[in-house]
């Protein structure tokens, strides 16, 4: 499984990339592989506010439906509208064109509480 060193991770199998104080969020390579072919992504609304751990979207595959959780609290400032017609990007490029949303964190230091690549790798291998 691909677990890039420069990202943070949640125990719910999301990745988080810090970009100029905002956080880009997607699901990990491990998660997309477990889900199988993704056929639909319910993205959150831009402007919506979530607490850490709130469900803010859904990923549906031919096998099952899974919720996506806000890894930290904050406000959604962008969503990946391309997924509406091409949800398969979540499978083919989970850390790139398969991104799901960008969130402006209520507390910028919240990122530090998330898993690093080593801890996330240990989680998925455990």
């Amino acid at each position, binding site marked *: 499984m691909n677990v890039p060193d420069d990202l943070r991770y949640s125990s719910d199998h999301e990745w988080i990339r810090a970009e100029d104080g905002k956080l880009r969020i997607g699901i990990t390579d491990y998660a997309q592989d477990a889900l*199988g*072919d993704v*056929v*639909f992504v*319910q993205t959150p609304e831009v402007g919506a506010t979530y607490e850490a751990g709130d469900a803010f979207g859904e990923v*549906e595959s*031919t*096998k099952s*439906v899974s919720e996506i959780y806000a890894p930290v609290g904050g406000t959604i400032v962008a969503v990946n509208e391309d997924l509406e017609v091409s*949800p*398969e990007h979540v*499978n083919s490029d989970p850390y790139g064109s398969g991104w799901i949303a960008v969130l402006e964190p209520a507390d910028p230091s919240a990122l530090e509480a998330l898993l690093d690549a080593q801890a996330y790798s240990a989680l998925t291998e455990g």
Partner: protein
Amino acid sequence: MPVAYPSGTISEHTACRNSCAVFDVSHLGTLVVTGASAFELLQGAFTNDLGRIEPGRAQYTHLLDPDTASVVDDIIVWWMTETTFEVIPNASNTGAVNDVLGSLADGLDVSITDTTDSRAMIAIQGPTARKVLGAVSGDASAVGRFRITPFTFQGVECVSAGTGYTGEDGVECAVPASVAPAFWDAVVAAGAVPAGLGARDTLRLEAAFPLHGHELGGGLTTLQAGLGWVVGWDKPAFVGRDALVRQKESGGYKVMVGLSVDGRRPPREGQTVLSGGGVVGSVTSGNFSPTLGHGIALAMVDDTVPVGDTVSIDVRGTEMPASVVALPFYKSKG
């Protein structure tokens, strides 16, 4: 059988629609029923009329609960020789079918043997299935629709049937375990794409084939799945006949319909179907249709809901509009 091979469910599905896929369906059971009374036993047990076919042919049929007519299993019967049949139930129902046949065989000249573990069942399906299989065995690939024929592979006797569960033309081969891996490899080498349980389910859903445990069984009867043609109504008796006749005469039961939604979001089993502000039924199978590019579902609804109606599906609290459509969702051009 895995849910998917590395290429993934959608690419396996597409291979079956456009060229050829191969499925390891060895989980299906095989009960060999043989003896002078074999015909009498099966004709009195199952819904369909074996008098409509003859040796060398296959027939789709049901075994019903005697009291409720709920489908105990849906089955393919291969009529091998005058006095020998192979009964092919779903994996998990093989024991139940064996038990019922065993109890009905009392006093008849017939023996029943479960040979499931001795053979593999390999399904080769798709518009180019016969061409692909022809490279492995011309005899196997030449079998007609709903016919069965013997063939040899590496000197070993096998059986080919012109049946399947994908909505495409195709063949299912019973191959003794000793040569099964070599047979699989030969079919793959000839161009078939290995496909798993995920694609098998999306393919059968597009073709609107009921799946036991979803549209059949658990109280659901042959009539509710729209399969009246599977019943030999002229037969004097089969297990569950009285209960099925009662249901047919009283009416007012839920029936299987097709639901089509505009977007890609898949309806899911168990979701409630609403119409006119009230509950009219529930989804029994649903998914994204790779061929059509939107969500589809089979549902059991009140028989007052006509094709062409707009209903809604309760997706975790959100009402998703759906059209009641004629079945199947997909029909092969072949």
